[in-house]
């Protein structure tokens, strides 16, 4: 060892030990910092981090309730659910959407139609929504995607419940359809304070019963608290609250009758409503053309959507509730009843019809140019004499007419249990005041009353209103609110909650007068304007034909040279009930641009009655009414 060094050992050691002490103090200081940090995290901020840890590990997973099933009065299913696998993409989790779809297309077929539909949904949704790009996968496709899933992040295979409408277009306007929830729907759900119940739900009823009974059909969402790992995989269930399935709906509607009625329209546009007069239950509700609600279930593709939206036939419009038509001559029985009730006519009192009615220098023409001669009340209905009603309307005056007709629900929403009803127009001097701006327009002219008397002029009612009114005639003046749902049914227990028929204010009319109208309307079907349509019927029915003039094209209609002629033709109308002495069915039919009510509308009613009353269906439509003289209107 070197002696030189030994000499300094003591001092060196002292120096060194000083440095070591400094290092030791630095170590203590550093550990004190660590301790402070631990204290801060584990004691001071413990609650915060504990919550964060809990949030990490617990995920609340909604368990969707099964949507209620809709079936007709005989238990035939009109809307049901089926389970299918879908491939879903969450755009927010994906950097290059096109590349991902490309990758996906390499392993399963993605038809262009599905791609377009996906694009459409993409535009309407939020980035963290999970959107289906393919639905109804086969088991094989599920397996292929599942195996490759790890290579395509943001893509998932999900089992979902889909809505299915086995009857397709039949009763589409009644049942409606389910569609993806939009921002607007979300807003409505929030307002109704149902946001929690709709967690996990991505479809909601858009029209028809699916919409109006959304709450009942949806059910109550269950929740499951699941412990999840960092990959989001469930590890175990912590708590579970079961969902309550939506209520099933039992309808008053008879789907077979509905099918018969829809088929009876053939290629015609129009609407039909058949009611059970003693309850207001809807037996059939037709709006032609219809649409296939199944198209909407997976999200409708743009081509189909455009086709439905742009069609001049307006297939998405529910004509039965929202279509407005002048009642034409179907208005006459009510006019006659008004005359009896208000003492303006007696049944036997006759009016001479020379083929026209002169008023203030204007000639109001009867459709029969040669005139009907002396016409009493029954005959006026049976042959549908216009002149009789021109004169009657003039005698009654518009305010009497409006007041009397108001009792039948004309010009007021009937309050049926699906949405979209139009109000219609029950013309009166007061209505005109409200409707128009200038004093010139606001004034009611007596000449206008005369047109109103034969169901033309400002008159505009929905087929539902026409049906409700004729049901009132059928049911001796006792009216019920029309409804489609007859009961809701607990999906589990099968317990049914009946929808009680809601009686409306009974009509203030004498039975004797109603009886006279009945006799006249029986005459219409027996030897009058609808005699052809009801030839050889095995029951007695009461009816009234009508023809409504299409005055002008509606503003939103496109000009279509090849069809404009057809669309200017008159609408054919018919109201009826049967059996005449104890009616179980009352209906109103409107066939657009089909000409005489006797020819186009009454045969439809005949088929419906035949089926409903006799359980038979004539494959061959009944003979058309002969188009001679008086049968026209």
């Amino acid at each position, binding site marked *: 060892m070197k002696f030189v060094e030994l000499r300094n050992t003591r001092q060196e050691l002292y120096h060194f030990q000083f440095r*070591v002490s400094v290092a030791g103090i630095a170590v203590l200081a550093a550990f004190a*910092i660590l301790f402070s940090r*631990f204290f801060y*995290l584990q004691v001071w901020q413990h609650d915060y981090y504990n919550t964060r*840890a809990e949030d990490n590990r617990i995920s609340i997973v909604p368990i969707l309730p099964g949507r209620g099933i809709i079936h007709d009065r005989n238990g035939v299913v009109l809307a049901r659910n089926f389970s299918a696998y879908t491939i879903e993409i969450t755009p927010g989790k994906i950097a290059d959407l096109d590349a991902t779809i490309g990758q996906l297309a390499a392993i399963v077929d993605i038809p262009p139609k599905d791609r377009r539909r996906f694009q459409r949904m993409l535009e309407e949704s939020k980035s963290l929504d999970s959107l289906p790009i393919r639905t109804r996968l086969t088991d094989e496709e599920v397996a292929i995607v599942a195996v490759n899933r790890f290579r395509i992040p943001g893509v998932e295979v999900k089992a979902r419940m889909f809505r299915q409408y086995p009857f397709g277009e039949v009763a589409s306007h009644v049942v409606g359809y389910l569609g993806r929830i939009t921002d607007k729907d979300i807003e409505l759900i929030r307002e109704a304070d149902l946001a929690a119940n709709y967690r996990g739900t991505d479809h909601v009823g858009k029209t028809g019963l699916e919409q109006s009974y959304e709450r009942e059909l949806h059910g109550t969402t269950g929740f499951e608290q699941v412990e999840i790992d960092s990959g989001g995989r469930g590890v175990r269930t912590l708590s579970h609250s079961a969902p309550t399935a939506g209520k099933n709906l039992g309808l008053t509607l008879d789907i077979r009758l509905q099918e018969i009625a829809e088929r009876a329209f053939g290629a015609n546009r129009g609407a039909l409503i058949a009611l059970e007069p003693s309850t207001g239950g809807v037996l059939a509700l037709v709006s032609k053309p219809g649409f296939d609600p199944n198209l909407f279930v997976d999200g409708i593709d743009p081509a189909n959507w455009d086709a439905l939206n742009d069609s001049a036939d307006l297939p998405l419009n529910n004509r039965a509730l929202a279509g407005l038509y002048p009642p034409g001559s179907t208005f006459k029985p009510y006019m006659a009843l008004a005359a009896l009730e208000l003492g303006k006519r007696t049944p036997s009192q006759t009016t001479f019809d020379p083929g026209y009615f002169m008023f203030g220098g204007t000639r109001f023409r009867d459709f029969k140019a040669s005139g009907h001669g002396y016409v009493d009340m029954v005959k006026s209905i049976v042959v549908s004499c216009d002149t009789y009603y021109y004169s009657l309307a003039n005698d009654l005056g518009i305010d009497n007419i409006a007041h009397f007709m108001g009792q039948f629900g004309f010009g007021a929403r009937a309050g049926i249990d699906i949405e979209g009803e139009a109000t219609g127009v029950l013309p009166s001097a007061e209505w005109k005041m409200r409707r128009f701006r200038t004093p010139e327009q606001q004034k009611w002219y007596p000449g206008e009353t005369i047109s109103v008397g034969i169901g033309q002029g400002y008159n505009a009612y929905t087929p539902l209103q026409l049906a409700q009114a004729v049901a009132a005639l059928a049911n001796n003046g006792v009216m019920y609110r029309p409804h489609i749902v007859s009961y809701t049914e607990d999906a589990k227990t099968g317990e049914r909650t009946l929808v009680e028929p809601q009686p409306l204010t009974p009509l203030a009319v004498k039975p004797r007068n109603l009886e006279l109208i009945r006799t006249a309307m029986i005459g219409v079907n027996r030897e009058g304007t609808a005699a052809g349509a009801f030839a050889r019927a095995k029951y007695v029915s009461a009816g009234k034909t009508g023809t409504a003039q299409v005055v002008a094209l509606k503003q939103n209609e496109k000009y279509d040279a090849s069809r404009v002629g057809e669309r200017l033709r008159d609408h054919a109308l018919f109201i009826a009930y049967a059996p005449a002495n104890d009616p179980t069915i009352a209906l109103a039919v409107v066939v657009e641009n089909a000409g005489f009510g006797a020819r186009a509308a009454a045969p439809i009613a005949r088929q419906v009655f035949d089926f409903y009353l006799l359980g038979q269906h004539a494959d061959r439509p009944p003979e058309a009414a002969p188009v001679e003289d008086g049968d026209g209107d």
Partner: protein
Amino acid sequence: MVIRGLAERFTAKIDGPLFVIVCALLLLGILTLYSASFEQPGRIAAQGLNIVIALAVMWLAAQVHPLALMRYAVPAFLLVLLMLAGVALFGDVRNGARRWLPLGFGSIQPSELAKIAIPLMLARYFHLHEGALGFREYAVAAVLLAVPTLLIARQPDLGTALLVAAAGFYVIFLAGLSWKFMAGMFAAGLASLPVLWGVLHSYQRRRFLTLLDPSQDPLGAGYHIIQATIAVGSGGAVGKGWLKGTQTHLEFIPERATDFIFAVYSEEFGLIGNVLLLLLYLALIARGLTIAANAPTFFARLLAGSITLTFFTYTFVNMGMASGLLPVVGVPLPLISYGGTAMVTLFFGIGMLMSIRHHRTLVQT
């Protein structure tokens, strides 16, 4: 008698207090690893083997006389330099970094060896120039330290570079580098931070920025820090209990058997466990510094001091990282993290400490 004699000879050079502390830490380590690697139970056996090997290495290192260690310093240093150069030229790239040197029979990480070779070399250098330490000597030492450190930093392996630089710096500091000079260097260092920033890899910069605000990148780099901090904080005062850490067992803690094992420990044993761990490390460091303070030669003192303070560096950086105080650098928690390489290096250091302790009186001549 013979057996007892053999046992005594076998354990003669093992320092009792140091060994007890180390065993306590190993025990905590195995318990924590058991919890952290529930999905890979094989790791316990593997870590057991690592420990056996590391203890053997410790025992061997404890048998080597400090003077012999000094003799091997230069060849070891040159070998490490050579290997680091080799890594730079022919190294295998794993996880985006060139750290491994392929040898015929396997591959090694020369940067691990540097953690021992560099303090050895510097301690020897200062020992030989003891009593005449001037600017020239410190400058030479700085170069000896800087070359391998930069090679490691370039790999890039910031964690190891940091540990190597710290080990070298401790030698220089303990050798008596003037306070004024250190203050000057510190100032210069601060001034050169912007330059350093430009030299850093983008992922290193990101780690640093993420540390300042982990929520900026909650699914990327910030995820590690956020989840580890949640684990520590949710542990509370007494912890969630062994095997009951939800962050651990639901796999929210990344790298939970290795670099982030402290988050696992902390979640399950809480502040009380943390204090225990700090005290154990503190005891180990205190013992090491005591050994250094009482070592007979300048070389032994510097070496012992550097080994001990490097141990501290591991501990501080790892715990600081797992609790969100320091940026994420790949530094294991000594004697607890899963992995053989760091374990062997650490135990080699402890073995050297024991050797220095044992030979403290044998140098007087």
